[in-house]
């Protein structure tokens, strides 16, 4: 059924408004499986709102399909069932849980995670928990966040929180991945590792939507770029072409220079 041609994510005419403020005025985009699509645009253009709309964090109108299946909007948790995972612009980890524990909560293996299993089926629960910890360690290692394994969220550095959050979604082996500014707060080595990671994920068939302000990262890792401005799609195309577009350059006055372009 699930032919590889099925798009990981299809967004059609999605609209979001906060009272009288229209944050998204009808945006459409497609993320094919195995590809990385970059989503960029000036501050406040609606990039995070798009991810929030897809994951039910904000109320939205329009049509969204994940892995070919239509998604009921404004219902958080629906997208997760279709193998979609996201990260947050401000990384969110639990302050009282360690890095490993935070990552474990993202694991899809639900065995031994009930009250009755905790008391009456302790052997099985213990075995499942060992599997989760093993995978969590591997995921943390993969994102380069092993140093945060035994540190609680409350005392993690900003960068560590980002990496732990990334590991928490990766451990679920998502088919669609929405990353909201994953490079913010990372150092150059970590950004290089992130670039490799995203490329690898796409090679594994994951559809990635990457929001970022680092133009070099977008150019190197994305197959396509979508530029938003004031809740509308300004332009879409191959990375190299997009930056030549006059209106994109105008929207990005100042920021292009910061990025060294």
């Amino acid at each position, binding site marked *: 059924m699930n032919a590889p041609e099925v798009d990981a994510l299809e967004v059609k005419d999605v609209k979001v408004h906060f009272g009288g403020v229209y944050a998204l005025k009808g945006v459409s985009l497609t993320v094919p499986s195995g590809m990385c699509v970059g989503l960029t645009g000036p501050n406040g253009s609606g990039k995070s709102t798009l991810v929030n709309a897809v*994951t*039910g*964090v904000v109320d939205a109108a329009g049509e969204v399909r994940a892995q070919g299946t239509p998604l009921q909007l404004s219902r*958080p*948790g629906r*997208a*997760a*069932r279709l193998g979609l*995972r*996201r990260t*947050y612009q401000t990384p*969110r980890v*639990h*302050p*009282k*849980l360690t890095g490993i*524990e935070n990552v*474990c*909560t*993202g694991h*899809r293996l*639900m065995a*031994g*995670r*009930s*009250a009755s*299993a*905790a*008391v009456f089926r*302790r052997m099985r*629960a213990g075995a*499942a*928990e*060992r599997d*989760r*910890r093993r995978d969590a*360690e591997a995921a943390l290692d993969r994102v*380069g*966040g092993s*140093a*945060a394994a035994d*540190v609680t969220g409350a*005392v*993690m*550095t900003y*960068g*560590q929180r980002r*990496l732990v959050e990334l590991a*928490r*979604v990766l451990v*679920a082996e998502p088919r669609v991945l929405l990353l909201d500014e994953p490079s913010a707060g990372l*150092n150059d080595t*970590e950004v290089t590792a992130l670039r490799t990671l995203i490329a690898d994920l796409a090679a594994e068939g994951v559809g990635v939507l990457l929001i970022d302000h680092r133009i070099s990262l977008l150019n190197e890792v994305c197959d396509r770029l979508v530029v938003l401005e004031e809740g509308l799609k300004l332009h879409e195309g191959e990375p190299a072409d997009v930056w030549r577009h006059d209106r994109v350059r105008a929207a990005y006055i100042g920021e292009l220079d910061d990025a060294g372009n």
Partner: protein
Amino acid sequence: MTSTRASTGTRANTALGSGLVCYLVVGYVIAAGGDGYLLTVASLAAVNVVLAVGFSIVYAQSGQFSFATAGLAAAGAFGYAWFAKHMPAEIALVAAVAATTVLGLAIRLATIRLSRLYFAIASVAVGGLITIVLVNWESLSGGASGVGPVPAVTFGMVDGEELAGVFLIAWLLSAVAVAAGSLLYRSAWARDLLVVKDLRHIGQNDGLPIRRLELEAYAVHAAFTGLAGVMLASTGTFISIASFDISMALQVLIMVVLGGSGRVLGPVIGAAVITPLPEILHGAGKWSGMVYGITLLIVLVALPDGVLGLWDRFRAWARARLVRPGTVRVEGGSP
């Protein structure tokens, strides 16, 4: 890595084991040497430990504020009294706990769409409703005058007519509840609850079954509260609906807040401190109510994270002091 984790698990089990042995020794000493008064207060402490552990899981770990404690405890108590007329006390205990759990699940299922605040308000009404139904269901509750004598749970180990023996069984039951609470607190389930409580959207988007988790936490609360009701009925020969009012829920809340959260030890400490407090303050005569309130206020303000929080802060402080000057401790790596 794995070996250190395994050893922390073993250490937690050892701590639980030795803690339970101490707990049982205390119970045995009280049973052997205590007079009627001490036995009565200690029985109440055992009941409160069970109430507090159950409430701590649903409130502190899962973030559901439930005021239905008294109603659920009454259901357990009168359920037990009724079942015990028709079957052996031990089976009546299981039946009453099961019935209270089902009742709790039904309450939570009916209110699952409410926000946390509205559920808290609804739970006050539901708790009151259970008591009203019980008062009017005279064959079950004996109406306003109550029912009794209620047979004691003995497991065939003690004399059901003797206060010390009946107390010892209640103490044993509370130990079982503490052990179960400890296993629950250390589980992957409790970790999921914490995420759903504090990072709801994030848990949801990571695929956690938040409704199931919250229902389970409420069922655990109902089961523990039902057990506490059974213990009340078993240790007191006579039960009346008047002893199940909203102040029960408030008292249990205070125990849980005072003890601290995150571990089963918190609610146990809270129950151990709060239960004898009114007795100790009896000396203040007509001022005892006020002294009780002011004492609580001071303690709660001074200990925002409860006794456990104070202990953890003390340990962190002591550890920092014990690190020799000159040694640099590196925590984590990434800048």
